């Protein structure tokens, strides 16, 4: 047995080492102060997963954008009401014919590598998205030319008036202005260089990403020394980390915990309405769902409140249209109520006598599975048998595209301008019109709204289109979920954003 002794000793030593340090308090993450002036503390936050990559123009992962929101800038950016505000562009002029937009850039802005930010960087970034046909290239379809007449001016020429150009350019960090050298060295995927309030410091695979405050940030150097994003997908672990002070902010919070956390005085809870929406879509290529009455019957049969309770424990606002009440684009609509008699009547008119519905849910978005069960019981009294399928998400996407479903539930997230979603989802030629809805009147309204530059007139066009869309149940809109985030009382100055953008540039960390 002598041979085993060294192993046993080593293991015992390890255990001892671990045991020795167990009496010490947990490392609360005192500021490293690396590179930052003022010596503030580093903010530790827990996000629900690891970014796939850090190239803002290429990634589609929300985890990436949580980090990149703090590293990059766009020409313009959203505020807490989702209206567009100056960022890298200080101001802009629009020509009388609405076809030329001239952006005046902020002076003295530098990238994190010290190089100067100029109009050429804007031209390069936008052309990169267009030329490489990256997934956001569609936002530029109306753009004919992007020019840089001088270092601080960018001129964008359009083929048609585009009133939502600003939200296309600054709605999220997918449209960030990148550094050409950083792209060409391929380092952008793992070590991005931006102009934002924090610069990239390190990425430890599977564990964390660290950002350092940018002392030269055009909006003023952040007060904290930096941000460390830890990847914690298990909510219980994230909450334990928050409660023990290992992290000071997290959004990894299951909705069923909200009520309990509201009573805790060591945790600040931020629950705010989001601009996301969830909907049902009936495949109009399949009978009887080509009949508007059959679709309306489903809209009358479902119980939104029950669905909201089941999927989010009440942390969502029921809505029969896409846009939440807080938005400038909100219009009221309340045609449907849970009314089984009305639903039966409509089914009778449409000549539908029971049958089965193929409901395509996906475990990628567990709310679709939960809601499917509620909807199945909602439709049962009508003699409709809901068969719930849960393919993996890539199969789901395939089948949505090929139209192999009767009913599906999905959400659109981070919405800002109505053109982004109404046109794509309900125009006859919309890229996401999987349900196959087609109404020339709606098409016309959406086309007009796309180029209408008078804000009030544009609002009216969308309100009208939305009403028809809901009346004809192209989509049966369900609810707008809440953004749920929590932080410790030491964190001050943090604001929850309805598009889930996470900005730490203005926060302070008080002595705990």
């Amino acid at each position, binding site marked *: 047995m002598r041979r085993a002794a060294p192993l046993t000793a080593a293991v015992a030593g390890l*255990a001892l080492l671990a045991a020795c340090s167990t009496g010490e308090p947990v490392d609360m993450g005192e500021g490293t102060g690396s590179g930052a002036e003022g010596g503030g503390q580093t903010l530790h936050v827990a996000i629900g997963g690891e970014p*796939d990559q850090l190239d803002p123009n290429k990634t*589609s992962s929300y985890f990436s954008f949580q980090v990149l929101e703090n590293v990059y800038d766009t020409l313009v950016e959203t505020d807490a009401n989702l209206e567009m505000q100056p960022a890298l562009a200080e101001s802009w002029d629009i020509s009388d014919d609405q076809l030329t937009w001239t952006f005046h850039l902020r002076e003295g802005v530098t990238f994190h590598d010290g190089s100067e930010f100029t109009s050429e960087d804007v031209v390069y970034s936008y052309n990169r998205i267009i030329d490489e046909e990256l997934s956001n290239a569609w936002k530029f379809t109306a753009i004919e030319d992007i020019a840089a007449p001088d270092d601080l001016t960018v001129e964008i020429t359009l083929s048609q008036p585009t009133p939502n150009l600003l939200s296309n350019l600054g709605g999220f960090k997918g449209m960030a202005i990148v550094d050409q050298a950083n792209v060409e060295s391929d380092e952008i995927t793992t070590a991005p260089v931006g102009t934002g309030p924090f610069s990239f410091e390190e990425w430890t695979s599977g564990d*964390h990403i660290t950002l350092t405050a940018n002392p030269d940030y055009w909006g003023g150097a952040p007060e904290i020394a930096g941000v460390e994003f830890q990847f914690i997908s298990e909510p219980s672990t994230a909450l*334990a980390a928050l409660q*023990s002070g290992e992290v000071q902010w997290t959004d990894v919070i299951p909705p069923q915990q909200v009520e309990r956390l509201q009573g805790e005085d060591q945790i600040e809870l931020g629950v705010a309405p989001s601009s996301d929406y969830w909907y049902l879509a009936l495949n109009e290529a399949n009978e009887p769902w080509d009949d508007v009455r059959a679709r309306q019957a489903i809209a009358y049969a479902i119980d939104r409140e029950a669905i909201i309770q089941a999927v989010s424990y009440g942390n969502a606002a029921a809505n029969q249209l896409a846009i939440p009440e807080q938005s400038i684009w909100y219009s009221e609509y309340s045609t449907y109520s849970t009314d089984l008699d009305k639903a039966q009547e409509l089914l009778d008119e449409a000549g539908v006598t029971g049958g089965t519905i193929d409901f395509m849910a996906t475990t990628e978005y567990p709310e679709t599975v939960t809601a499917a069960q509620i909807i199945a019981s909602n439709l049962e009294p009508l003699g409709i048998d809901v068969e719930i399928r849960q393919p993996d998400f890539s199969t789901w996407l395939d089948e949505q595209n090929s139209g192999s479903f009767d009913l599906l539930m*999905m959400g659109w997230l981070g919405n800002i301008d109505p053109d982004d979603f109404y046109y794509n989802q309900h125009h006859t030629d919309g890229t996401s019109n999987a349900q196959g809805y087609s109404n020339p009147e709606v098409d016309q309204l959406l086309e007009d709204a796309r180029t209408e530059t008078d804000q009030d007139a544009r609002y009216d066009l969308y309100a009208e289109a939305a009403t028809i869309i809901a009346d004809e149940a192209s989509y049966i809109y369900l609810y707008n979920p809440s953004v749920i985030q929590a932080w410790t009382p030491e964190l001050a100055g943090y604001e929850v954003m309805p598009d889930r953008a996470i900005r730490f540039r203005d926060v302070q960390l008080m002595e705990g």
Partner: protein
Amino acid sequence: MRGSPRALLVFLGRRLVYSAVVLLGVMVVTFAIVQLVPGDPIRLALGTRYNAEAYQALLEASGLDRPLPEQFFSYIAGALTGDLGVSFRSGQPVTVLLLERLPATVSLAVVGIGLALLIALPAGIWAGLREGRVADAIVRVTSQFGVSVPDFWMGLLLITLFSGILGWLPSSGYTPLAEDPGGWARQVVLPALTVGLVAAAILTRYVRAAVLEVAHSGFVRTAKSKGLSPKVVTMRHVVRNALVPVLTIVGIQLATIASGVIVVEVVFAWPGLGRLVYEAVAARDYAMIQGAVLLIAAMFLLINLIVDVCYALVDPRIRLS
């Protein structure tokens, strides 16, 4: 054979050739299986806002539009030089991503098995030597409990106790050993304890059974009748011989933990192989899945080899041939 280094070399050489054949087989099978799994990685990467132009551009950029035989041979050719391709999801080399996860994975496996042995060896031997008595019953019931407890629940329990209530240990995260040994140790304790307790429960039962079997065998009776002290009989004859079957189980447990204990890794936000593989499968990141499976297969082979060498060291009757 014990004294012959030449026999050892021949043995190792033969095993190396055998391992290479197995690994080649693993590569062929994973390449085929990955292609058969339904789900299109490009569509997944584009999400709900799909459009045909972006799809085509991404398909060409990823190289997934090349003919399958071409993809396969470039995969094999690359693997021979240590290049396992580029992860579609992150744009980084698979080899780099795997090597980044290796230290955390090995830390968890080694410390976890260490803790398991620390518990299982004394407990199993103790119970085995006291068959049918109270001590035996206690060990058997406790280990049954350990086998039955789901590891995620055990992990959450440990977090609640040591991190939440007592505040002694961090709930999650990982620090490389070389960077800060103290931080590494504090963070490895809870996840290692979680996998260790489960492994200990399994190992204890094997140790107990092995000890029982050896204790009833003829040579032990002979040793006792020769008048050797019980201590010498236990240590030199019973325990040593009982270790042989136990080694196999230790090897399997070690390899299992090293190849990723996804639930424990998720609960403790531990940057191990398990989460990497899970995320790669979810995104249909073909190169990443193939590379990870290859690495896991290689680890199994290596651990098996070590176990086989250990057999010979523990039991002179076993020859390396």
